[in-house]
């Protein structure tokens, strides 16, 4: 049975292995320079990056994000559905192998190959991006930290969990819908929905987040959110480690209760010039922030510290694997009982 599964999978597997190898080679060639840069000093990383480095960073994110979805749609969805469409299930289900063993073997081999490929890819991309993740440039902004939703799902072991889930999801939808194409489309749609829902509503609470109260100053200010008239509506601050993932950010008044910004802030901001280029210490909105701080306003931040990266990774991987297990159980039941 393993032989048959592999015989049916090998062409697609070769394609993916080839693509992953190509990507790994590119990363292996360009990666060591970044490590050197980072060792020389984090501050310099940004100034000496080439545009190729930037492109590769974002390409790595896109590839690791896309491959699990594609594998789920192109390997998972047709796994059972194509057999049903071609009628070959009537050939293979009448060999001396039960349907359950047939499906279990197919599921196991396919998910294993997919998980290995994506695991290798994620490992390569994680290693390559490590010097850049969360790096802050003085003049040119920062790369997203590993815990932020932008990067988290494309680093570490989580992509392996996503891949297993995507493949099992595809197989299940294929078995239920009996149409490869419909199942592929729906697999992509459901997978994307899950990947949007989890970072929004589940991931922040997988590991208990930290709450901190941070003083408002030019150093800690992250952004000012404008209201309809262009005045300041609310402000956000950042923690000292740019790798932290900030989940909630709210202003507290002197009595420690959440409060809106005082009315005078609008006038204070309106007096400052629109454009300003210079060191943060000399920013024209600084007096506004100082006054805010002196009136007792502080900022409460709920965040996942960068150090929680691995606990959150493992928890999320376990979550996806558990969901995959449940889906696989349903798929086995469906194939044994309902497919005829």
């Amino acid at each position, binding site marked *: *049975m393993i*032989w*048959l599964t592999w*015989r*049916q999978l090998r062409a697609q597997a070769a394609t993916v292995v080839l693509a992953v190898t190509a990507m790994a080679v590119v990363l292996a060639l360009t990666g060591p320079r970044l490590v050197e840069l980072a060792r020389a000093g984090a501050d310099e990383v940004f100034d000496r990056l080439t545009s190729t480095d930037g492109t590769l960073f974002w390409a790595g994110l896109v590839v690791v994000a896309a491959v699990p979805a594609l594998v789920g749609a192109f390997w998972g969805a047709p796994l059972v559905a194509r057999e049903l469409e*071609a*009628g*070959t299930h*009537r*050939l*293979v*289900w*009448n*060999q*001396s*192998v*039960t*349907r359950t*063993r047939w499906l279990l073997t197919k599921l196991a081999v396919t998910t294993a190959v997919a998980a290995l490929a994506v695991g290798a890819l994620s490992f390569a991309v994680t290693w390559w991006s490590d010097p850049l993740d969360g790096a802050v440039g003085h003049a040119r902004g920062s790369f997203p930290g590993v815990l932020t939703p932008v990067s988290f799902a494309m680093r570490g072991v989580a992509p392996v969990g996503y891949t297993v889930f995507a493949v099992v999801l595809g197989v299940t939808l294929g078995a239920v819908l009996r149409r490869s194409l419909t199942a592929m489309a729906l697999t992509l749609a459901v997978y994307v929905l899950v990947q949007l829902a989890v970072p929004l509503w589940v991931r922040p609470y997988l590991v208990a987040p930290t709450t901190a109260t941070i003083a408002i100053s030019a150093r800690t200010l992250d952004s000012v959110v404008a209201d309809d008239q262009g005045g300041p509506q609310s402000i956000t601050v950042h923690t000292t480690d740019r790798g932290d993932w900030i989940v909630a950010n709210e202003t507290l008044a002197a009595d420690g209760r959440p409060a809106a910004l005082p009315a005078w802030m609008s006038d204070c901001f309106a007096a400052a010039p629109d454009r300003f280029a210079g060191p943060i210490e000399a920013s024209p909105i600084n007096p506004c922030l100082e006054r805010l701080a002196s009136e007792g306003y502080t900022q409460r931040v709920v965040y996942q510290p960068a150090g929680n990266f691995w606990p959150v990774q493992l928890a999320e991987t376990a979550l996806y694997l558990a969901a995959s297990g449940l889906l696989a159980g349903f798929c086995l039941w469906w194939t044994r*009982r309902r497919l*005829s």
Partner: protein
Amino acid sequence: MTAAIATDALGKRYRRRWALSDCTLDIPAGRVTGLVGQNGAGKSTLLNLAAGLLRPTTGTIEVCGGRPATDAAQLAKVGFVAQDTPTYAGLSIRDHLRLGARLNPGWDESLAASRVERLGLDPGQKTGRLSGGQRAQLALALGLAKRPELLILDEPVASLDPFARREFLQVLMEAVAEQELSVVLSSHVVSDLERVCDHVVVLVDSQVRLAGEVEALLDTHHRLTGPRRTTREMPRDQQVVSERHTDRQTTLVVRTEGPVLDPSWTVTQLGLEDLVLSYMELPTSDLTGRGDGTTGAPSLEVLK
């Protein structure tokens, strides 16, 4: 000896339609049984139930003494050549033989190899490029090399041209003679089965209309031709299966254990095809007495 297939009040429903209902049958082992019926009569449903691809809605079915497809041992006992003989289009003939060898503990390597050799095909060829007849032969080789106790073939020759049809049945018959296996095959073309079957089951409108040994059936059925008359005054032991009247003449098919004594009848022997057709033409109400209003004789597919 256990029956090859034994069913008891077997029924299968697809949503609202009963594809097979109240089917109680004993198909003997060691025989070649033909399953005859029009398209949609329930032949495929019965065979798929026997192969374990379908589950019964009502009743039970036992194949070679066990419930179909319950475990690997049961699966090994039954070979199934599905309708349209599906194969993996992207895999070669050699791959299919390897598939058979890997998935069947009782696989007969030399048998499979010699059958494929006789087809005169390149083993490296992808099966997607084979003709219907070649694919059917490959499917048959796979079914036989598995060394099953019972081989089920669902409309194996339906899509073949007359030459391929004859050749396929020939190979099947040779194998039956060599391997001592039970065979159940279905067809909507009676003449295909006439040459190969020694047992026949006729399905009409999802129900078993007739089942029996071919020889015994032929011995007990006669065609009577004579001057026009009604069938009311027929002797009690003569059951009228079908009747045809012209202005002057009446033609009957009757079933009787004894001889036909009335000298006004000209008695002729029936062929299996005519016998089966006369049962298929019979309105359902006449046989079952349920009076469901089916009267018009169902039209049979014209034979080539």
